[in-house]
């Protein structure tokens, strides 16, 4: 990690944390994947926030037409009961983004704290974290979530908790790895010798320099969470009181031969969200390693 960013933020000022956040953002915007991803996510966020203004119909109200193909009246067509699919897709952005954002932040909080403690203090913290992470990794996240949902039910809040519980070890392992590495850095050793409080060393000296990979993981966590929520909806197991993209696909299953629009648009929306998040992650990685790709050009020279 000798990217310009890390050397720049190696001596963070008073607002080291915020500045490193801004640095990361500037770098993402400098890559084509990153800026494209940010645009996609902005569009989705705006859609979610202003859903009542954008959606032409109430997503749970019935129109007079059932199974109407896409037209100017119903942009994405209507389903078997007469719901306007465009309006449902617009409102669906809300549940997906809430799931993605809140579980990624919950993982960041839980995984971040666990990873920092394990990476800084090692010892017992390290052993416990590694064993627990290993336990979680014996099962795919979707199976963990299915297991929890089967036992405790699938209301929206339980679903959020189940997804967060299934994915937090990813972030914990990452933060742990970063902190193990940073603990060896000279300026961290210097800060400890200088007698700065642990809180200062961790939050001001180490955290800003681990921001980039942590934010990549936040984006990836959010995309995994959105995918799991959509998958549960598709399986017909998520909260029936929420309008969600996955559930629209579940309902589309019975009308696959007569109403392609019931399947195309909600699926494309899920795809868009996941592509957007992965592009941001890719852009961040590219910014951290700008040399990538140059070797193949030399090979052909």
């Amino acid at each position, binding site marked *: 990690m000798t990217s310009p960013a890390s050397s720049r933020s190696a001596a963070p000022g008073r607002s080291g944390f915020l500045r490193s956040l801004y640095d990361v953002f500037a770098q993402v915007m400098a890559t084509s994947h990153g800026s494209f991803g940010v645009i996609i996510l902005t569009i989705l966020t705006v859609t979610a926030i202003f859903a009542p203004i954008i959606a032409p119909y109430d997503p749970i109200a019935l129109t007079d037409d059932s199974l109407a193909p896409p037209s100017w009246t119903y942009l994405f067509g209507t389903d078997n009961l007469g719901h306007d699919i465009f309006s449902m897709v617009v409102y669906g952005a809300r549940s997906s983004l809430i799931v993605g954002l809140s579980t990624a932040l919950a993982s960041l909080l839980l995984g971040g704290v666990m990873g920092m403690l394990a990476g800084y203090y090692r010892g017992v913290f390290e052993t416990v974290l590694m064993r627990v992470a290993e336990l979680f990794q014996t099962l795919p996240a979707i*199976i963990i979530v299915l297991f929890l949902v089967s036992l405790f039910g699938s209301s929206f809040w339980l679903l959020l908790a189940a997804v967060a519980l299934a994915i937090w070890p990813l972030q914990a392992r990452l933060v742990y790895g970063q902190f193990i590495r940073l603990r060896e850095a000279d300026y961290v050793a210097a800060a400890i010798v200088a007698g700065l409080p642990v809180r200062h060393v961790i939050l001001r000296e180490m955290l800003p320099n681990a921001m980039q990979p942590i934010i990549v993981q936040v984006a990836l966590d959010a995309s995994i969470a959105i995918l799991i929520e959509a998958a549960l909806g598709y*399986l017909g197991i998520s909260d029936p009181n929420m309008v969600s993209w996955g559930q629209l696909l579940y309902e589309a299953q019975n009308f696959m031969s007569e109403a392609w629009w019931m399947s195309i648009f909600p*699926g494309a929306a899920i795809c868009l969200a996941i592509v957007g998040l992965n592009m941001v992650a890719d852009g961040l990685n590219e910014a951290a390693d700008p040399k990538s790709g140059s070797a193949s050009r*030399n090979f052909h020279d």
Partner: protein
Amino acid sequence: MTRLILLRLVHGVPLLLAVIIVCFLMLQMIPGDPVQAMVGDFPVTQAFRDSIEAKYRLNDPILTQLGSYLLNFAQGDFGFSFQNQMPVLDLILERLPRTILLAVAGFVVAIPVGLVVGLIAGLSPSRRADRIWTTLTLIAFAIPTFWLGQLLVMMFALKLDWFPTQGIGPFVSRAHGVDWLLERLHYLALPVAVFVVHEGARAARIMRASVQETLSQGYIVNARMKGLTRGEIIRKHLLRNSVLPVVTTSGYAFASTLGGTVLIESVFTWPGLGLLLVDAVRARDNMTVVGVVVVAAAMVIVVNLLVDVIYALTDPRVRSAR
């Protein structure tokens, strides 16, 4: 080498035990009647209730309960599925080979495709070509498998009628030998296509990065200076050194696929372990759910062990390590 395998084995057993113990503790946390928590929302006769209470020692202290719970698993008794009216283990053993067939078929086709795409992308001389490949594989990997499956069914099964929409084969099959295999392939085609897009894209992304990493190594430059042609370098140095990361990550992906391709099996109503799990979750058939979870964990642990061994065999540094 044997030491390594033994070490991993010794490591795997407590891990599986821990999975079972966590399942047990989770069942304890369900509020209400413990018998219902175990069997799910099915009506239970008093006689059955008594037998469950005796078998799992539900009226004894929690440690005794845990002991009898583990003992039952160790004896191969995974409980009884109310939904299917048969022992959970029989149910799992019936479903498991089908999931293995699906996963093997999917990966056998998907990984070579991914390797080739990744190699082309990694070797692409222009920044623009590289970028296009990266974007394409990123999108391919981001497409949800269940949506892609639905689209394929709509296009190739319902509209064009080339392939069946679902299932593993016809109810009554009179085909033998090669015909039987072809019949099976007919049903495998669409699910395998989903694997090609998803797992192929994963493999391609890793292969691309790995190829570029290898290209920047000194021995490639050295080989160029010695006057080897590009083709020779690719065959002799590049491939061998780039494939390893793909093998390991694909191995781990394969492990979790065996643990239940929940989504692909659901789209194509492929009656494997994943579909069993989903049906059990829907019916709250908790004994089956726990059974599948434990078997899935065991599969992941075993396959990961195998991947580690293969990795060790291909890497002389690891091979000779004590």
